[in-house]
Protein backbone atom coordinates (compact mmCIF):
# COMPACT_ATOMS: atom_id res chain seq x y z
CA UNK A 1 0.00 0.00 0.00
CA UNK A 2 2.79 2.32 0.98
CA UNK A 3 4.57 1.49 -2.27
CA UNK A 4 1.50 2.40 -4.29
CA UNK A 5 1.16 5.77 -2.59
CA UNK A 6 4.84 6.43 -3.20
CA UNK A 7 4.41 5.61 -6.88
CA UNK A 8 1.41 7.92 -7.23
CA UNK A 9 3.38 10.70 -5.57
CA UNK A 10 6.34 10.09 -7.93
CA UNK A 11 4.00 10.27 -10.91
CA UNK A 12 2.50 13.52 -9.72
CA UNK A 13 5.95 14.99 -9.15
CA UNK A 14 7.07 13.96 -12.63
CA UNK A 15 3.92 15.45 -14.15
CA UNK A 16 4.64 18.74 -12.37
CA UNK A 17 8.25 18.67 -13.51
CA UNK A 18 7.03 18.08 -17.08
CA UNK A 19 4.64 21.02 -16.80
CA UNK A 20 7.44 23.24 -15.54
CA UNK A 21 9.83 22.14 -18.32
CA UNK A 22 7.21 22.85 -20.99
CA UNK A 23 6.33 26.21 -19.51
CA UNK A 24 9.95 27.24 -19.15
CA UNK A 25 10.90 26.19 -22.69
CA UNK A 26 7.89 28.08 -24.08
CA UNK A 27 8.96 31.15 -22.15
CA UNK A 28 12.52 30.93 -23.48
CA UNK A 29 11.26 30.47 -27.06
CA UNK A 30 8.93 33.46 -26.78
CA UNK A 31 11.71 35.57 -25.29
CA UNK A 32 14.13 34.66 -28.07
CA UNK A 33 11.54 35.41 -30.74
CA UNK A 34 10.66 38.70 -29.14
CA UNK A 35 14.35 39.59 -28.94
CA UNK A 36 14.86 38.71 -32.62
CA UNK A 37 11.80 40.68 -33.74
CA UNK A 38 12.87 43.79 -31.86
CA UNK A 39 16.56 43.65 -32.75
CA UNK A 40 16.41 42.43 -36.30
CA UNK A 41 13.06 43.49 -37.67
CA UNK A 42 11.28 46.49 -36.17
CA UNK A 43 14.29 48.61 -35.20
CA UNK A 44 16.20 48.17 -38.51
CA UNK A 45 13.05 48.93 -40.51
CA UNK A 46 12.54 52.15 -38.55
CA UNK A 47 16.18 53.14 -39.09
CA UNK A 48 15.74 52.64 -42.81
CA UNK A 49 12.67 54.86 -42.74
CA UNK A 50 14.54 57.48 -40.73
CA UNK A 51 17.15 57.63 -43.43
CA UNK A 52 15.32 56.98 -46.68
CA UNK A 53 11.67 57.71 -45.95
CA UNK A 54 9.86 61.01 -45.73
CA UNK A 55 9.61 62.80 -42.38
CA UNK A 56 6.05 61.52 -41.91
CA UNK A 57 7.18 57.97 -42.65
CA UNK A 58 10.05 58.35 -40.21
CA UNK A 59 7.75 59.62 -37.46
CA UNK A 60 5.23 56.84 -38.12
CA UNK A 61 7.94 54.20 -38.17
CA UNK A 62 9.29 55.21 -34.77
CA UNK A 63 5.80 55.44 -33.31
CA UNK A 64 4.87 52.06 -34.77
CA UNK A 65 8.04 50.59 -33.35
CA UNK A 66 7.06 51.79 -29.91
CA UNK A 67 3.63 50.20 -30.18
CA UNK A 68 4.58 47.04 -32.10
CA UNK A 69 7.61 45.89 -30.15
CA UNK A 70 6.39 43.26 -27.75
CA UNK A 71 8.98 42.64 -25.08
CA UNK A 72 8.98 39.18 -23.48
CA UNK A 73 11.60 38.66 -20.84
CA UNK A 74 14.22 40.95 -19.42
CA UNK A 75 16.60 40.95 -22.38
CA UNK A 76 13.81 41.92 -24.77
CA UNK A 77 12.68 44.73 -22.46
CA UNK A 78 16.22 46.07 -22.43
CA UNK A 79 16.48 45.69 -26.20
CA UNK A 80 13.21 47.55 -26.68
CA UNK A 81 14.19 50.50 -24.47
CA UNK A 82 17.68 50.72 -25.97
CA UNK A 83 16.28 50.53 -29.50
CA UNK A 84 13.64 53.16 -28.83
CA UNK A 85 16.14 55.50 -27.15
CA UNK A 86 18.37 55.29 -30.21
CA UNK A 87 15.43 55.64 -32.62
CA UNK A 88 14.10 58.75 -30.88
CA UNK A 89 17.59 60.26 -30.96
CA UNK A 90 17.68 59.54 -34.69
CA UNK A 91 14.24 61.07 -35.10
CA UNK A 92 15.34 64.15 -33.16
CA UNK A 93 18.23 64.55 -35.58
CA UNK A 94 15.96 64.10 -38.57
CA UNK A 95 13.45 66.63 -37.24
CA UNK A 96 16.26 69.09 -36.64
CA UNK A 97 17.58 68.63 -40.15
CA UNK A 98 14.14 69.26 -41.57
CA UNK A 99 13.85 72.42 -39.49
CA UNK A 100 11.31 71.20 -36.92
CA UNK A 101 12.88 72.32 -33.67
CA UNK A 102 9.91 71.76 -31.27
CA UNK A 103 9.35 68.25 -32.69
CA UNK A 104 13.06 67.58 -32.33
CA UNK A 105 12.91 68.61 -28.68
CA UNK A 106 9.92 66.34 -28.15
CA UNK A 107 11.86 63.43 -29.66
CA UNK A 108 14.81 64.23 -27.40
CA UNK A 109 12.45 64.12 -24.41
CA UNK A 110 11.26 60.67 -25.50
CA UNK A 111 14.87 59.49 -25.83
CA UNK A 112 15.51 60.75 -22.30
CA UNK A 113 12.47 58.80 -21.10
CA UNK A 114 13.83 55.54 -22.49
CA UNK A 115 17.29 56.37 -21.21
CA UNK A 116 15.80 56.65 -17.70
CA UNK A 117 13.92 53.40 -18.27
CA UNK A 118 17.22 51.71 -19.02
CA UNK A 119 18.59 52.96 -15.72
CA UNK A 120 21.44 54.90 -17.28
CA UNK A 121 23.05 57.80 -15.49
CA UNK A 122 23.12 61.35 -16.90
CA UNK A 123 19.85 60.95 -18.78
CA UNK A 124 19.48 64.57 -19.77
CA UNK A 125 18.53 66.28 -23.03
CA UNK A 126 22.14 67.43 -23.21
CA UNK A 127 23.39 63.86 -23.06
CA UNK A 128 20.97 62.78 -25.78
CA UNK A 129 22.00 65.70 -27.99
CA UNK A 130 25.71 65.36 -27.51
CA UNK A 131 26.13 61.59 -27.39
CA UNK A 132 23.22 59.87 -29.09
CA UNK A 133 22.44 62.45 -31.75
CA UNK A 134 26.16 62.98 -32.26
CA UNK A 135 26.56 59.26 -32.88
CA UNK A 136 23.63 59.24 -35.31
CA UNK A 137 25.09 62.29 -37.07
CA UNK A 138 28.49 60.68 -37.47
CA UNK A 139 27.09 57.44 -38.87
CA UNK A 140 24.86 59.36 -41.25
CA UNK A 141 27.83 61.36 -42.43
CA UNK A 142 30.04 58.36 -43.15
CA UNK A 143 28.16 56.21 -45.66
CA UNK A 144 31.17 54.13 -46.51
CA UNK A 145 31.60 52.68 -43.03
CA UNK A 146 31.64 48.93 -42.99
CA UNK A 147 28.78 46.67 -42.06
CA UNK A 148 30.59 45.71 -38.87
CA UNK A 149 28.47 48.06 -36.77
CA UNK A 150 25.45 46.05 -37.88
CA UNK A 151 26.52 43.09 -35.87
CA UNK A 152 27.37 44.77 -32.61
Amino acid sequence: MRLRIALVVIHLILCTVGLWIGHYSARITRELRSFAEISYFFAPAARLQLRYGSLTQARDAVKRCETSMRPEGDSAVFQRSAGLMSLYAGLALRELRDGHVPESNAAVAQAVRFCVELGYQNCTPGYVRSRLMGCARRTAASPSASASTENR
Partner: protein
Amino acid sequence: MARGDGAENRLSRSREVSQLTAKIGLAKRHLWFLLLLLSLPAALLIGVSVSQWMFPVPDNSLALAAQLRSPAFTAAEEDSGRAREAFVAYANALEDVDVQGVTTELAANKVLAWAMVARFSVQTTERDGALERARAYCNQLGWVDCSDSGLLTLSKDAGVQVSG
Protein backbone atom coordinates in the same frame (compact mmCIF):
# COMPACT_ATOMS: atom_id res chain seq x y z
CA MET B 1 -3.33 -49.94 -6.03
CA ALA B 2 -5.33 -48.19 -8.73
CA ARG B 3 -6.99 -46.01 -6.12
CA GLY B 4 -3.55 -45.03 -4.80
CA ASP B 5 -2.40 -44.07 -8.33
CA GLY B 6 -5.46 -41.86 -8.82
CA ALA B 7 -4.82 -40.01 -5.57
CA GLU B 8 -1.19 -39.48 -6.53
CA ASN B 9 -2.22 -38.14 -9.95
CA ARG B 10 -4.68 -35.70 -8.41
CA LEU B 11 -2.04 -34.52 -5.97
CA SER B 12 0.56 -33.94 -8.66
CA ARG B 13 -2.02 -32.15 -10.88
CA SER B 14 -3.03 -29.83 -8.07
CA ARG B 15 0.63 -29.18 -7.39
CA GLU B 16 1.14 -28.26 -11.06
CA VAL B 17 -1.89 -25.99 -10.97
CA SER B 18 -0.68 -24.21 -7.86
CA GLN B 19 2.80 -23.81 -9.39
CA LEU B 20 1.26 -22.35 -12.53
CA THR B 21 -0.88 -19.99 -10.50
CA ALA B 22 2.19 -18.85 -8.60
CA LYS B 23 4.06 -18.28 -11.88
CA ILE B 24 1.16 -16.27 -13.31
CA GLY B 25 1.02 -14.21 -10.13
CA LEU B 26 4.75 -13.53 -10.36
CA ALA B 27 4.49 -12.59 -14.04
CA LYS B 28 1.59 -10.25 -13.27
CA ARG B 29 3.62 -8.55 -10.58
CA HIS B 30 6.53 -8.13 -12.98
CA LEU B 31 4.21 -6.77 -15.64
CA TRP B 32 2.78 -4.21 -13.27
CA PHE B 33 6.24 -3.20 -12.20
CA LEU B 34 7.27 -2.82 -15.85
CA LEU B 35 4.18 -0.77 -16.63
CA LEU B 36 4.84 1.46 -13.65
CA LEU B 37 8.42 2.00 -14.75
CA LEU B 38 7.26 2.89 -18.25
CA SER B 39 4.63 5.25 -16.91
CA LEU B 40 7.25 7.37 -15.14
CA PRO B 41 8.65 9.02 -18.32
CA ALA B 42 5.10 9.03 -19.67
CA ALA B 43 4.07 11.20 -16.73
CA LEU B 44 6.86 13.60 -17.59
CA LEU B 45 5.80 13.71 -21.24
CA ILE B 46 2.18 14.25 -20.26
CA GLY B 47 3.27 17.20 -18.14
CA VAL B 48 5.24 18.71 -21.04
CA SER B 49 2.37 18.17 -23.49
CA VAL B 50 -0.18 19.71 -21.14
CA SER B 51 2.03 22.76 -20.61
CA GLN B 52 2.51 23.14 -24.38
CA TRP B 53 -1.24 23.13 -24.71
CA MET B 54 -1.62 25.60 -21.86
CA PHE B 55 1.19 27.94 -22.99
CA PRO B 56 1.34 27.66 -26.77
CA VAL B 57 4.10 29.32 -28.77
CA PRO B 58 2.59 30.48 -32.07
CA ASP B 59 4.43 29.62 -35.25
CA ASN B 60 6.21 32.85 -35.97
CA SER B 61 7.69 33.23 -39.41
CA LEU B 62 8.66 36.81 -38.59
CA ALA B 63 11.07 35.87 -35.83
CA LEU B 64 12.47 33.03 -37.91
CA ALA B 65 13.24 35.43 -40.76
CA ALA B 66 14.67 37.97 -38.32
CA GLN B 67 17.04 35.35 -36.98
CA LEU B 68 18.59 34.96 -40.44
CA ARG B 69 19.52 38.61 -40.61
CA SER B 70 22.54 38.60 -38.37
CA PRO B 71 24.28 35.61 -40.05
CA ALA B 72 23.77 37.29 -43.43
CA PHE B 73 25.42 40.50 -42.28
CA THR B 74 28.23 38.53 -40.67
CA ALA B 75 28.86 36.83 -44.02
CA ALA B 76 28.78 40.25 -45.68
CA GLU B 77 31.27 41.61 -43.18
CA GLU B 78 33.63 38.76 -43.89
CA ASP B 79 32.97 39.41 -47.57
CA SER B 80 32.76 35.70 -48.11
CA GLY B 81 31.23 33.93 -51.07
CA ARG B 82 28.40 32.88 -48.78
CA ALA B 83 27.11 36.44 -48.44
CA ARG B 84 24.79 36.26 -51.44
CA GLU B 85 23.49 32.87 -50.43
CA ALA B 86 22.87 34.10 -46.89
CA PHE B 87 21.01 37.19 -48.07
CA VAL B 88 18.93 35.14 -50.51
CA ALA B 89 17.92 32.89 -47.61
CA TYR B 90 17.09 35.93 -45.50
CA ALA B 91 15.15 37.67 -48.28
CA ASN B 92 13.18 34.51 -49.07
CA ALA B 93 12.38 34.04 -45.39
CA LEU B 94 11.06 37.61 -45.36
CA GLU B 95 8.94 36.80 -48.41
CA ASP B 96 7.44 33.89 -46.47
CA VAL B 97 6.48 36.01 -43.48
CA ASP B 98 2.79 35.73 -42.84
CA VAL B 99 2.08 38.26 -40.11
CA GLN B 100 -0.62 40.91 -40.30
CA GLY B 101 0.02 44.58 -39.60
CA VAL B 102 3.73 44.79 -40.35
CA THR B 103 3.56 45.58 -44.08
CA THR B 104 5.69 48.72 -43.91
CA GLU B 105 8.40 47.16 -41.77
CA LEU B 106 8.39 44.09 -43.96
CA ALA B 107 8.79 46.13 -47.13
CA ALA B 108 11.64 48.17 -45.64
CA ASN B 109 13.51 45.04 -44.60
CA LYS B 110 12.90 43.46 -48.00
CA VAL B 111 14.35 46.47 -49.82
CA LEU B 112 17.56 46.11 -47.85
CA ALA B 113 17.65 42.31 -48.16
CA TRP B 114 17.22 42.29 -51.96
CA ALA B 115 19.60 45.22 -52.36
CA MET B 116 22.19 43.21 -50.45
CA VAL B 117 21.51 40.20 -52.70
CA ALA B 118 22.15 42.45 -55.70
CA ARG B 119 25.34 43.79 -54.15
CA PHE B 120 26.78 40.31 -53.73
CA SER B 121 25.53 38.92 -57.05
CA VAL B 122 28.21 38.24 -59.59
CA GLN B 123 25.99 37.41 -62.56
CA THR B 124 24.22 40.33 -64.18
CA THR B 125 20.88 38.53 -64.49
CA GLU B 126 20.85 37.66 -60.79
CA ARG B 127 21.87 41.19 -59.87
CA ASP B 128 19.17 42.74 -62.06
CA GLY B 129 16.54 40.36 -60.73
CA ALA B 130 17.40 41.25 -57.14
CA LEU B 131 17.42 44.96 -57.94
CA GLU B 132 13.99 44.65 -59.53
CA ARG B 133 12.59 43.04 -56.43
CA ALA B 134 14.21 45.65 -54.19
CA ARG B 135 12.84 48.41 -56.43
CA ALA B 136 9.31 47.01 -56.22
CA TYR B 137 9.33 47.31 -52.42
CA CYS B 138 11.15 50.64 -52.55
CA ASN B 139 8.45 52.05 -54.83
CA GLN B 140 5.79 50.59 -52.57
CA LEU B 141 7.29 52.58 -49.69
CA GLY B 142 7.58 55.71 -51.83
CA TRP B 143 11.23 56.30 -51.10
CA VAL B 144 12.94 58.97 -53.13
CA ASP B 145 15.77 57.11 -54.85
CA CYS B 146 14.81 53.67 -56.11
CA SER B 147 17.27 53.63 -58.97
CA ASP B 148 19.89 50.89 -59.35
CA SER B 149 22.62 53.14 -58.00
CA GLY B 150 20.39 54.36 -55.17
CA LEU B 151 19.64 50.80 -54.10
CA LEU B 152 23.28 49.75 -54.29
CA THR B 153 24.26 52.79 -52.23
CA LEU B 154 21.60 51.82 -49.72
CA SER B 155 23.07 48.34 -49.50
CA LYS B 156 26.52 49.79 -48.82
CA ASP B 157 25.24 52.22 -46.19
CA ALA B 158 23.13 49.57 -44.51
CA GLY B 159 25.63 48.72 -41.81
CA VAL B 160 25.86 52.33 -40.78
CA GLN B 161 22.27 53.39 -40.82
CA VAL B 162 21.01 50.22 -39.21
CA SER B 163 23.40 50.55 -36.31
CA GLY B 164 21.78 53.92 -35.50
